[in-house]
């Protein structure tokens, strides 16, 4: 049951009337209250039943973090009464649905569409909580309200801020392929084709044997290896929950992973994706050429950092067991946390590195660097010393990983995505994939 401001006004009128009634106050009160209750009850009974409304939905199902999505609810009124009142499409608070409620009039037998704009501030799935229909009677005094289910999910995808680095990295990649306008010889290691020498080509690339067979001078062209397999592994364990700046490590790692996936997709490599802590949280397997980025973005959207310790043994087992036997580049996005890595990952590394090339990428925290530079008082030095200790452990575990043949990319949140892309391009240039 709901009442409106009009009902309050009516009660106010009744109050004034009774106050002015003088000696017949008791009778006036009885009459006023009876009239008030009767009018309210009549209005409630005459209001169109909100329970009878039929709802259907359409609208956007996914958006990038930072964008807005629009969802629609169509309210169909199958009753013979006119529905007047208001409607609210309820979403979780972080979806920032506007407007919160809006007036609604649906004549009998017709339908109306209600628009709600969502601007989510959190990645992941936002589920509609229900549509509340409030129906007020013909006098506008009182009515009924009901919350009806109208399921809908809007998936908020990772923002992929590092997209802006993609053109620069792609041009570096093209340099490798020899397609660059600067006529620089492709530095790839895979033999591509023979073609006629043009002035400006590197004389070292002249294929003398082929030249001897034909008329003109023939040069070999090279190109980077293609069709290499890359597996991007996202660690969603407890260390990924820590916030660097205002964003969890996990989101920085996603950003870097997306840039790498986009780049590798353009370079002709096959990208697989996996998110793992103690079990597989998400997985995308490449199924041929073409960009996997969209599918990876979809798979990443609902991922949240889990407050469990990651299980590197299980991770290594999963990679070795289910991901085929071909050599691949495994890019593990995690934290260079000395304890977690030394106890978990390092003992398992030989099994992995003997078959695959492993690259560990981690986001370091500029706040720790700032702490390490604090000076002036003993308290500041204690903080600096604690930060130095953290940095020292990080350096030690980095050195340890490198000694075992692991590529390590350690950069702050601003630079982790381009640094990872550069590391990938360097590997490709060296032909180590």
């Amino acid at each position, binding site marked *: 049951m709901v009442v409106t401001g009009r009902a309050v006004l009516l009660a106010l009128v009744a109050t004034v009337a009774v106050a002015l009634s003088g000696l017949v106050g008791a009778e006036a009160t009885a009459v*006023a209250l009876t009239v008030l209750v009767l009018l309210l009850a009549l209005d409630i009974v005459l209001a169109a039943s909100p329970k009878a409304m039929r709802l259907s939905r359409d609208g956007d199902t996914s958006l990038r973090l930072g964008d807005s999505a629009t969802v629609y609810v169509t309210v169909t009124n199958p009753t013979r009464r006119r529905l007047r009142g208001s409607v609210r499409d309820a979403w*979780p608070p972080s979806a920032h649905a506007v407007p919160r409620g809006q007036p609604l009039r649906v004549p009998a037998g017709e339908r109306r569409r209600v628009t709600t704009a969502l601007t989510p501030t959190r990645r992941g799935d936002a589920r509609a909580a229900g549509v509340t229909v409030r129906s007020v009677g013909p006098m506008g005094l009182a009515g009924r309200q009901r919350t009806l289910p109208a399921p809908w999910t809007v998936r908020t995808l990772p923002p992929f801020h590092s997209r802006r680095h993609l053109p620069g990295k792609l041009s570096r990649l093209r340099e490798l392929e020899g397609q660059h306008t600067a006529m620089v010889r492709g530095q790839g290691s895979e033999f591509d084709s023979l073609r006629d020498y043009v002035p400006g080509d590197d004389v070292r690339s002249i294929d003398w044997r082929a030249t001897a067979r034909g008329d003109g001078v023939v040069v070999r062209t090279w190109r980077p290896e293609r069709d290499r397999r890359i597996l991007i592994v996202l660690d969603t364990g407890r260390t990924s929950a820590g916030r660097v700046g205002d964003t969890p490590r996990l989101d920085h790692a996603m950003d870097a992973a997306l840039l790498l996936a986009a780049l590798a997709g353009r370079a002709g490599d096959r990208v697989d994706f996996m998110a793992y802590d103690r079990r597989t949280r998400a997985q995308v397997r490449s199924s041929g050429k073409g960009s996997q980025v969209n599918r990876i973005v979809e798979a990443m959207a609902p991922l949240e950092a889990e407050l469990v310790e990651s299980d590197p043994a299980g991770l290594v087992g999963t990679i070795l067991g289910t991901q085929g036997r071909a050599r691949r580049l495994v890019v593990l996005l995690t934290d260079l946390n000395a304890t977690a890595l030394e106890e978990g990952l390092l003992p398992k590394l030989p099994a992995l590195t003997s078959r695959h090339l492993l690259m560990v990428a981690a986001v370091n925290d500029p706040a720790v660097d700032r702490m390490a530079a604090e000076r002036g008082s003993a308290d500041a030095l204690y903080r600096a010393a604690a930060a130095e200790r953290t940095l020292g452990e990080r350096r030690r575990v980095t050195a340890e990983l490198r000694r075992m043949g692991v590529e390590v990319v350690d950069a702050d949140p601003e630079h982790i995505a381009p640094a990872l892309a550069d590391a990938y391009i360097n590997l490709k240039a060296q032909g180590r994939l």
Partner: protein
Amino acid sequence: MTAAAPPAPPRDSAPHRTPPKEGSRALRAWRSVRVPAALITAFVTVVVLLSLGTEQFPTGHLEPGSISPDGTRALVNVLEEDRDVHVVRSSPAAEEAVSEAGDDTVLVVFLDHRLLPEELESLAALDVDTVLVRPSTPSLEAFVPGVEMTGREEPEGFPEPDVAYSPECDLSAAEAAGEAYVGGELYTAGSGVDAVGCYPGGSGDALVRVRHDDGTTTTVLGTGGPLTNAELDSGGNAALALNLLAAEDVVWLRPDPPQQEGSSGLWELLPLGLRWSLVPLVAMLALLALWRGRRMGALVPESLPVAVRASETTEGRAGLYQSRKARDRAATALRAGFLDRVTPKLGLSADAVPGAVVATVAERTGDDPAHLRSLLYPEPPDPYAGNDDMLVKLADELDERARRLR
């Protein structure tokens, strides 16, 4: 594109998202009320304990229960040692007390301006010795016709007035008491009245005893001052008071202020309609609350992500160092950080022996190798871990070396 991403894991899979168990609702309710409940209980307890320590005494001029200077509790307590004192607050109660008391009774009347004329008449008609303390004019006329107030000498000084009066009469009660700090209103008995005046002042007597035809006496005292707690022990005040009230039963009449009878309160004065309008007013307020308070559907819950800074463990370790004053550990960490940064620049490997590092750094910076050695690789006890100032000095020296090696 044959393989697809596996379905998203169920959102409630992780332990920290486990929904609260049944029964924890009662627990939560108890948790939310226990602090206010404890506070209220403590408050009530304190108030009760405090109120146990204090006893409330009535206050007022010549009030028999009052312990303030202008009360008369001291006199009442003295009287109660060997006679019955009946404190009454109205003239009917006084008449009843007089009739119930024995033959040897004295009625003391204070503040009789609070009594109505007919009450004074009926009191005057009682067959009992009476003491009037500073009576009003109607009271004088009712009790002792013929005695008039002829002057007033308000004594100065408190608690002991500066003027003491001597009895100068043959009234044994006054003579025995001797000098007393009476005063106030002075009375003169007219001719034809069987009266004795004591404590003469300029224009009358401060105490007049009138003997009536029926054998009873009425004593008029010009002031209640001698009877108060403050002045009772001054001069002959106490003796005078006890002598005047020498009887087996003392009926002590201090009337309460007269109550207004038959007056109507604000509520009765309001028109009937206005009073009845409270009922629809309450209904209106209820509707107003319902109108403003009714929500459009339930609140939508949302599980929030954990918000923990990645530097949390580092901050925690800094706090530990600080609370334990772990200067040795801090110095070790600062040195290790310095060496980690410097040795690659010097072309040394990470596991270079101390001697090589000291030699190289000394060569590049021009420092004394012995000093450098104590700075970078001190012999225990570490000279830089002695106090905070030395730790600050260590950091400064390391920074200086790092700057020169840049």
